[in-house]
């Protein structure tokens, strides 16, 4: 398997964004995942979101761990720097990268094995710290690359392709992220692009830890009857909370909604997200209620999707550390090295 180049030609009337880029400018190399893999839909949702937000691709850094999901950053945003790190450790690498340059957009792509098992600790701590990032878990409930073992997000009682029943409780990453203090928590489904694209856009705009748990069925190992991560199961158990329609600030408002059916959410920079509510009386700003809602629905076997929680005044790691606004990787000798005079004073204090 080698590097696969894509042909560059495209239709002359292809859609362009504010930067004059077409969606082709947000692509990567050809995917080597299985045909029909949910992860490829997430990749295309990421490309679409970046295209619609008119983000310069080179200002995005995409990082991942190990696994099928972690391979995907090769397949989108070819003009962005990417880092396929080690298993379960994307969050720490991303945290370090973010410390070095606060001006880039950080996209962390992980899977359920990567984030809920080997990397559960790093997932938790990166969120606790409020690293400004979009953290997407492409959650298929199974280890794909090693051919079908259960992951820690597999539901108890679900059946593997080989007929083995999972006896361990599942980790709900969205609920965990809420508990850990993520300031943006969403869950979506790779098969619902109309929900996923705006969620990714909103997560990118969010200045803090934005976590998206994206159910993404594994067509090879977890799309059978008895699985709770199959396309059919997720479609029939999806309890969507809301539908994000658009984000102002960058995109113009083009549609009107019935009063009362929408919730307008103000963001830190003055832009807004408009949610069309599906679940009545659901307030995305109420963290405790969100946790309660997730657990209640989970008990009935439903999968809550949509924007689950949003803190309109997020606080990120750089705020906590009170770092300078200039990216640390741009500081140089005069900023960093105090010189002999300062050293003389230190020497004097050490005698």
């Amino acid at each position, binding site marked *: *398997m*080698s590097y696969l180049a894509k042909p560059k030609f495209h239709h002359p009337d292809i859609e362009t964004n504010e930067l004059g880029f077409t969606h082709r400018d947000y692509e990567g*190399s050809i995917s080597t995942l299985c045909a029909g893999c949910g992860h490829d839909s997430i990749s295309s949702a990421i490309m679409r979101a970046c295209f619609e937000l008119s983000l*310069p*691709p*080179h*200002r995005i*850094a995409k*990082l991942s761990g190990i696994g099928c999901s972690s391979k995907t*950053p*090769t397949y989108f945003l*070819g*003009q*962005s*720097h*990417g*880092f*396929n*790190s*080690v298993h379960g*450790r994307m*969050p*720490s*690498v*991303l*945290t*370090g*990268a*973010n*410390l*070095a*340059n606060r*001006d*880039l957009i950080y996209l962390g792509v992980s899977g359920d094995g990567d984030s809920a098992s080997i990397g559960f*600790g*790093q997932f*938790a*701590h990166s969120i606790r710290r409020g690293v400004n990032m979009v953290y997407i878990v492409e959650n298929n409930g199974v280890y794909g690359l090693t051919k079908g073992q259960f992951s820690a997000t597999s539901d108890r009682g679900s059946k593997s392709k080989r007929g083995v029943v999972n006896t361990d409780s599942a980790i709900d990453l969205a609920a965990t992220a809420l508990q850990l203090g993520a300031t943006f928590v969403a869950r979506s489904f790779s098969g619902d692009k109309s929900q996923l694209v705006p969620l990714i856009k909103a997560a990118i705009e969010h200045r803090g830890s934005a976590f998206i748990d994206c159910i993404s069925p594994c067509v090879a190992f977890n799309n059978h009857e008895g699985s709770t991560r199959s396309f059919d199961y997720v479609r029939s158990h999806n309890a969507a909370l809301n539908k994000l329609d658009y984000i102002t600030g960058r995109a113009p408002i083009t549609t009107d909604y019935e009063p009362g059916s929408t919730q307008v959410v103000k963001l830190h920079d003055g832009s807004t997200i408009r949610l069309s509510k599906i679940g009545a009386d659901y307030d995305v700003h109420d963290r405790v209620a969100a946790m309660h809602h997730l657990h209640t629905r989970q008990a009935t076997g439903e999968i809550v999707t949509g924007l689950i929680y949003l803190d309109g005044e997020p606080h990120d*790691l*750089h705020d906590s*550390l*009170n*770092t*300078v606004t200039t990216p*640390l*990787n741009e*500081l*140089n*000798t005069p*900023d*960093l*090295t*105090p*010189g*002999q005079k*300062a*050293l003389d004073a230190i*020497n004097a204090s*050490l*005698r």
Partner: protein
Amino acid sequence: MPIESINDCVIRFANVNGSGSASANQLFARSIMRMGVPVAPRNIFPSNIQGLPTWYEVRVSEAGHRGARGGTDFMVAMNPQTWDKDVASIEPGGYLFYDSSRTVPDSKLREDIVVLGMPLTNICNREFTDPRQRNLFKNIMYVGALAALLDMDLAESEKLISEQFKGKEKLIAPNQKVLRMGYDLARETFQCPLPMRLRRSDKVGDAVFLDGNTAAGLGAVYGGATVCAWYPITPSTSLAEAFERYCNRLRVDPVTKQKKFGIVQAEDELASIGMVIGAGWNGARAFTATSGPGISLMQEFLGLAYFAEIPAVLFDVQRGGPSTGMPTRTQQSDILLAAYASHGDTKHVLLFPEDPHECFEFGALAFDLADRLQTPIFVMLDLDIGMNQHMCKPLKWDDTRNLDRGKVMSAADLDAAKDWGRYLDVDGDGIPYRTYPGTHPTKGAYFTRGTSRDRYARYTEEAAPYVDNMERLLHKFETAKTIVPAPEFRAAAQPTRLGVLYYGSTAPSMNEAAELLAKEGVHLDLMRVRAFPFSAEVTDFIAAHEQVFVVEQNRDAQLRTLLLAECSIDPAQLVKILNYDGNPITARFIRKAIVDHVERLSARSPKVHS
């Protein structure tokens, strides 16, 4: 006969951990230094906050010997738990100073030493009502008594107290009062000074007194480190803390109060090194401080950094291991762990500072090396250098020096370049050119991963590009030999076939042992190794000697193993001299080991004894 000496003795304090003795003992050591007399103090402490035994040893040496000597001439026995061993450890003719508030039976004393009792507890209980003061002042009082017994300049101690409590002025007077009480009482009670005493000298010069962790942390500030990610572990914790302290003093914008650094206390060592690698990948200078157990946990990431060619700096303050084992005792036992860290053919650059002065120097240099070589650099301290205060040359910085960021392509460079590939060896030194994320809208982006890629960072699992890359990495390691700190050579007074290789904290004891041996007619050429990979000077040195002693502080002769493995040397040529009991290696130990070997050798072939 009581020991007679001037400016040449070892004084040991046996204390209870957490009793406030540390600052009093340090006051004693610094007072001697202020008298112009070289001191080498060492703290022997347990893994404990309060209650277990702890010792502080001060070696006084007019000749400037900074290594541990071994043996105790004067014991300040303040810990009943360790009384028997402490008393037994005093050299014949030595001195015992103790708190005589409780009577000690004669059977618990010795006849061949001078016993000096002073009722410290009784006096403090009489003079003070605050229980905390009663405890703390016992320590200050024995410092006063020692000043009288050893003929020290009390004014120096008084001055140090005023300096120490600057800003807390109300503490100065009572401390000075207690110091004076101890001093006066000793003069009333004992024949002062003792035959073993001190005298003002001029051997300290402009030397400074600090621990290696502080120096290395400060080195990281001067080396331009902006990101520090670490996890607390003895004996490295104070390194990250020193970095933070100096950054807060030197790197905060005076107007906005914003910080030109980011420090994260990570959840574990895996996260620490992950953050360092992420920051290094993104163009910030980043480091972690840890010890052997931490390096063990970082193995997978270290391989990634090696293959993905990401600059990173690790300060490894070595100790005994693992887990609860010997965390507060010194060793040089991570050499192989660090040199070959990770899986799949990896080798790393190691630096071996000998003292805090070099900890500062290498602490800064490591960041230039990491950027120039695009690889992890290990600065190998140990507990003895890291946590003990050492007298050393003052810290120096060349104000014309700029941080060397190595081969980094700017947007303009990318526009000008005909052909850029992340892993292309353009200059023939094995070091490719890198880009920081976000540099150029359409050029210079690449995907970072382990080894499955070609010179243009494109994914491939083919054999030829893999081998090509592995060979280039070896070539880069050859380049490293030419830019790491060169070894230090010191020729014997006369030609000799015997050489010694040593490194790190062994240096002061080795230097002293060589002096002792020269007086006995055993002449040794010395080479202090300051880095791995070994340069040609090291192999030439070995080739030029019939026998080379490799002096180390570990059980398995790890540097020797590294020499054998990397330089294809006949094992018979390299003689192990190993001390690994957790205490710093002493000149006495090295001397004896070498004499024993030389005697065995000369029994077989007299010509070797040069």
